[in-house]
């Protein structure tokens, strides 16, 4: 005979899944707001919400079926039989609540709305082959030349890049708020620190219009600078940009 706690296994599982939902929907946006010192909450994206909830349900089901006893306990809650009044009450709640929940999901998914579509973005567009072998000429130079190129690059960066990317290369330039997709925060270790110098050279030189045809549509407001800046100036901007952001470019590795 299963004890009282086990008889309510289904309810415990549902409660755990409900807690996960509350955490993702309401608690985590507030927690991130505090932790990241933002003036607005950071809502959990709907795609992640869906994935995490699926995993939560799956985890509950895995737990409830790891033994025959637990599985029987899980199902026993749905069967009629003697038990405390609270069980009967929760059963009725479940039989009414579950179809209502499904109905609510169907309604919210099918109701006409004006939301923009979710885009399957990719991190790095494919660097064209002709840019792969390029080397930053200033990286190979002596320390003094490197220092000079960084200084000059910083000036060029503040002149051409600051309006969008910000004076600290943190994506908070004066024009940043006018874009639907804000300029990238280069201080983030997951951005320019993960690519080689020549990747940036390509992105600056060709900009949004030079993005490859695969994985379209792209969402980039980056202008093409090839008509305004010389190659050396672009390389210097790269030197200054990394220094401003306080990160290092990915370096080519020797094969082992």
């Amino acid at each position: 005979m299963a004890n009282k706690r086990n008889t309510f296994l289904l309810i415990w599982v549902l409660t755990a899944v409900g807690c996960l939902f509350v955490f993702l929907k309401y608690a985590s946006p507030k927690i991130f707001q505090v932790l990241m010192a933002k003036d607005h909450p950071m809502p959990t994206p709907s795609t992640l919400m869906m994935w995490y909830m699926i995993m939560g349900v799956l985890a509950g089901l895995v737990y409830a079926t790891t033994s025959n006893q637990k599985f029987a306990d899980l199902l026993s809650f749905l069967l009629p039989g003697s038990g405390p009044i609270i069980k009967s009450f929760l059963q009725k709640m479940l039989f009414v609540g579950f179809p209502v929940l499904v109905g609510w999901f169907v309604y919210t998914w099918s109701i006409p709305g004006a939301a923009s579509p979710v885009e399957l973005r990719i991190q790095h567009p494919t660097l064209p082959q002709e840019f792969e072998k390029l080397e930053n000429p200033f990286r190979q130079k002596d320390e003094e030349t490197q220092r000079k190129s960084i200084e000059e690059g910083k000036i060029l960066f503040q002149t051409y890049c600051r309006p969008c990317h910000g004076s600290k290369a943190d994506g908070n330039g004066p024009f940043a708020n006018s874009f639907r997709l804000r300029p990238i925060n280069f201080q983030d270790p997951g951005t320019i620190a993960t690519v080689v110098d020549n990747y940036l050279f390509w992105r600056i030189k060709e900009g949004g219009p030079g993005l490859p045809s695969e994985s379209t549509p792209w969402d980039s407001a980056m202008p093409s600078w090839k008509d305004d800046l010389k190659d050396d100036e672009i390389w210097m901007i790269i030197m200054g940009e990394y220094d401003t952001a306080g990160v290092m470019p990915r370096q080519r590795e020797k094969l082992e």
Partner: protein
Amino acid sequence: MNNVKILMMLPKRSAFVVLFILSFVLPLTLSQKMFASEAPAQVAQEGAVSGVELPQFEGGQMSGSEQSPEGQPAASVGTETAVAAEEEEVGPVQYRTFFGIDSRLVVWIVSELHLMFAAFVLGVPIFAVIVEIVGFKGGDIKYDKMAKEFTKLLSAAFATTASLGGLLGFCLFGLYPEFMGHMTNVFAPTMYVYALMFFGEAFTLYGYYYSWDILKGTAAKKWFHISLGVMLNLFGTGLMFLTNSWATYMMSPAGIVPATGKVLSLYHAMYNPLWMPVNIHRLIANVCFGGFVVGAYAAVKFLGAKTEEEKAHYDWMGYVGNFIGVGALIPLPFAGYWLGREVYSSSPVMGNIMMGGAFSWTFIIQAILIGMLFIGVNYYLWLGMGRIKGSERYTKFIKYLIFVIFLCFAVWLTPHNLPLSGEERAMIGEQYHPFSKYFGVMAAKNAVVNLIILATFFSFLIYRRSNKGEMVPFSEQGRAGKIGIFSALIFCLLMLVSYAVSLNFVELEANIKVFVNPLIRALYIQSFVVCLAAFLTFKNKGKLGQTLLFAVTACIAVLYFWYYGFQVMQKANLVLRYLSVTQVSIVMSCLIMNAIIDVFMFRKAKLVGGIVWGKMPVRSQYALLLLCIVIVILMGLMGFIRSGLRMDWHIYGVLQDTSQWAYTPTLSYMGRVVGLIVVLFLGLVTFVFWLANLGEKKEKAKAKDYNYDEAAADYENTH
């Protein structure tokens, strides 16, 4: 008498295999001759016109005027005069179509099916021989029977592998003649070796299977049989290494002059930068694949079992299949990570395409599949505890393990770039949501995959302890225990300390090298903890030693390196390579030391009850089936990624794909094709195993008749 009949059948089957090989080899050699004779004439002809010596492999390409700017054949080609068309017919052909069907699709499906069967045929003998040795040394006939059953599946799948290999050869030579001309030009000598080794594989495989009953009775005979199995593995591995050199050459060509295609060094063409990482990754993956396919076979047999004895046998077989699968699955992420890093090293562009570019979403699918594998194997182990009396003492840990594994799974599949709607972007207010910012990068992925591995290992430990009761003090374990622990300790220390010492000598700039120091310290701390765990074991406190080792490993390899990975990413990406090896070494030392401590701590322990083989819920068998399906999908997906990374190149940076199929397929198209391949493979493998069992039924019936005759003869003699 039966053995004689079997021997008589051998030449027939071998002849069948030889025919297959010849059918594969002949066109290969003939076409090579054709290319050899055509190429110089063609080069001379074109060279005379342009005055420039053209690379040999470009001889068949259309001239610039016949191609569109995107490299596609121009529309005007079809409207040429009859004379021109006639000339084109006699000239070398670049591409052909398969009865109007997309050539790439045909090669994709056939090669993937061939690879899947080959993975099974190469993976299973590795553990079949090990199981046979275990049975022979332990004197348990059960293992021997199971090893033979594995080999029965193998011999059934081998002919299908060879057939698919022949078909793949025909498809490649027929549909991509120019590309295969280049490959033959570079690899012709290795192709003969391949064919010869195939003979070796066929002979040793059939010899191994059909001599099973003949070569038993004495230790010498059994060892001879085992050595046949070892030879089979050597031939199989050699074959795989050879074909891997061809496949990896296409990704990271070496040993040739890229502009002319002239071969400078066959050795370097073979030993190209990605050859060894792919070899190691495939070798481990084949064992994993074979284990899970065998597990699924056992599950099907279990579900259809009529007797308790049959159920018990197939339950045990399923357990062994799962054990082999998970055993190989644990080092697989490390091998995969090494391969990934070498892809980045050989070409940063290809690396970016792979992890951050057009193929990044396929890695999210991969993450889901790998997560499902880990959940599946753990779920099976937890269900398996139900058939062990005494497991109740450990089931309390399951809920914590579920929490840890699912939490890791959540981090593991969180992408760096989330699919966001415009409204969500506006609300988040920056490029990355914190979840994707902190969970989406490699530092986090490496940390959680190590934690999943530690959790899976913990599941296995509590599984094997379930049946064990009161322990014998370690001091009473005798010399074997001391030698065992001491050997494991020496091995772990050698691994950790030697790597720590080697890190002192890495050639890096001073400002980057400082980031290596914490890794060295971490390795020394782990070395100390490993020693401490061994010391505690000697003092009869092995459990405390194990707990300490688990805790310190999790703190260093998971928590600290998660944080430190971010630091290194920002400032010194070159150190990431050393960080990941340090992480792996620390986790491996924990697994090895803990496993050895557990073995000797619970040696001679009182048994609480027993394992009731066959007493497994049906859903456990569906878990085994799920594992098989997932690993097949995973192999299909990873095959697509490995091949697709070359984008519009047959041979990356050397020979461009100018056919109309030189584009990267969409995710949905890839999903449909991989799905079709998975269905085809599972259908074929089911059919092949069914055929193998037809023979078994016949043999069983014969054995019944034979036993009846024997019994009748005995009866006559007695009376």
